[in-house]
Structure formats: C-alpha cells, structure tokens
C-alpha cells in the first residue's frame, strides 16, 4: 500500500475501530466448505490456481466449523441432512457468514420433490446467494467481493 513507506519511524495513523476490525475480517475469511453435490467440482476449480480465491483473502479452508468464519454451502441439501447443516452452522463462532453456492442450495434448483430443502435459507440465515447450475467461477469471485463489501459496512451493534 505504500503506507509503511510514508510513515516515519515512531509515526502513527488514526482510524475507526469498526473500520479497522472489519477490514481485517474481510481479508481473512476462513472457510468451511459444506460440499454435497456436483457444485463441489466448481468449488475446487475456484479454489485452484486458475481462478484462485486466495487472491481475495479467502484461501484458508478449515475442515472444522469451529475454526471458520465463512460457511460455503455447496450443493443440494436434503431434509435428511438438514439437521447436520444446522448443527454445523451453530458450531461456528461469531462473527460468521454463509454463502449459498449454486441453484440447489439457494432454491432447491430443479429438485422440487419430497427429499430436497427448497433453499437453505429455510434452515440457516444466508448472506450471499450465487445463482447458476453450476455457477461460473467468476460469479463466485464476485460473490466474495460483494460479501467483503457487506462485511466492511457491518456495525458491531448489529451483532449483539
């Protein structure tokens, strides 16, 4: 950023605490991928070198919800697995965000039948929805940037 070059030794800057904390949070999202279906392939491609989600500060995948801030629900969620998803969400510590990845997670997709939950927002709160069957990697990158904008605007009082 060049900021450190401009600062003289022993210098100082001022900022707002909320702004600074949100800035730190939005560039260090630890994700928990809850992958249940074919969208998982797209998730892998978006994490790998061609598209590389790491460029936006969300490179670190944690395989326990207790260490992660971003829940990526990737794929079809059945009523059978719904209690598991709810428990995973509840185990995450605040602050936490949820991305609904793909048509099935967002609305049930074309599975309008006895088995499939018609959108994960019936089970857990969702911050960003990504449409597409499956979504293009660019859409996932765009969703992450939009989520970062959302995080930057958050106020501490809203999370109390």
């Amino acid at each position: 950023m060049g900021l450190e070059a401009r600062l003289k030794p022993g210098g100082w800057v001022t900022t707002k605490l909320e702004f600074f904390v949100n800035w730190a949070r939005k560039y260090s999202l630890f994700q928990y991928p809850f992958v249940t279906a074919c969208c998982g392939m797209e998730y892998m491609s978006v994490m790998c070198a061609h598209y590389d989600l790491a460029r936006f500060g969300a490179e670190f995948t944690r395989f326990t919800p207790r260490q992660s801030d971003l829940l990526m629900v990737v794929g079809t969620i059945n009523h059978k697995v719904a209690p598991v998803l709810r428990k995973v969400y509840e185990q995450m510590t605040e602050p936490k965000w949820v991305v609904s990845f793909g048509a099935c997670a967002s609305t049930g997709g074309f599975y309008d039948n006895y088995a499939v939950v018609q959108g994960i927002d019936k089970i857990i709160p969702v911050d960003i929805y990504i449409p597409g069957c499956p979504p293009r990697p660019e859409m996932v990158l765009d969703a992450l940037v939009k989520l970062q904008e959302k995080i930057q605007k958050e106020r501490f009082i809203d999370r109390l």
Partner: protein
Amino acid sequence: MSELVLNKLKARFPEAVLETHNQFGNETLVVKREAILEVMRFLKEECGFESLMDLSGVDHLPESPRFEVVYHLKSFKNGYRVRIKVRVPEEEPSVDSVVSIWKGANWYERECYEFYGIKFQGHPDLRPLLLYPEFEGYPLRKDYPHKKRQARIALLKPETR
C-alpha cells in the same frame, strides 16, 4: 442365442409366463406373481443368469394391478440379458423375496420397499434403506402429494431469513 431363454421358459412354465416380447434382442417376460421364486431359481441354476443387475418398482396408478417389480438379469458366461416383470396388486402389495437366490437383491428390495411400499416376503431384514427413520409414506408412489415435505427440524420463518 438369447431367443432360446425365452422359449425355454415358455416351455418349462407354460402357466406362469403371462406375456413375452422381444424387441431388438431385448427379451421381456411377464411372470405370474406366485411363480416368481421358481422361475428365478430356474433362470439362475439352469440358464446361467448368475447376476441380478437391477431390481426396481413401477407405479402404473390408474391401472390394475397397480404396481410392477422389474428384474434385470445378466449372464456373464453366455453374454445375454433378460428382463422379468411381475405385476403386483394394490390390495396386497407383496412379492416373494429373491435374496435366497441372489444375495445382492437385499438392498434393492429394501429400497423398493421404502419407496413403493411393496413387501418382499421372506426378506431377512426389510428395513428402510435410504430415507430417515421418521419418514412416513412411500414417496415414489404416484399418489404421494407432490408438494409434501417432511422436515426433521423446525424451519425458519420467512421474516427471519
């Protein structure tokens, strides 16, 4: 070669075979429900069908008998297949289990039971296989309500989403 199986069965079980057809070498026999075990054992032991490739249910709702169980058999030795169908009435939806002939039928029959409610007599352990335990009804029957959902946890209300 495969024509032989069809003729062989018709000759051996003249009463049990209700209907046959053979299209593009794809042989199908409709067999009487009571005779299924006998026919299947004959196919395995004397016609060389050592593999049950698939077992599935069909619901022909307005028709009677309503259900149908379809068996696909394959002989690796001779390289041919045959399809056996059994019509099952709605009033008494049960067929004899073929687990005693092919062990692999076990999970197919459990699946068919939980989705269509067709009972397989003589099955060693006829429990639901894929659905969760509190699920009620048979979801692949044509009269199962299309919009019916059986949630296991309380769903969020629209205003909290």
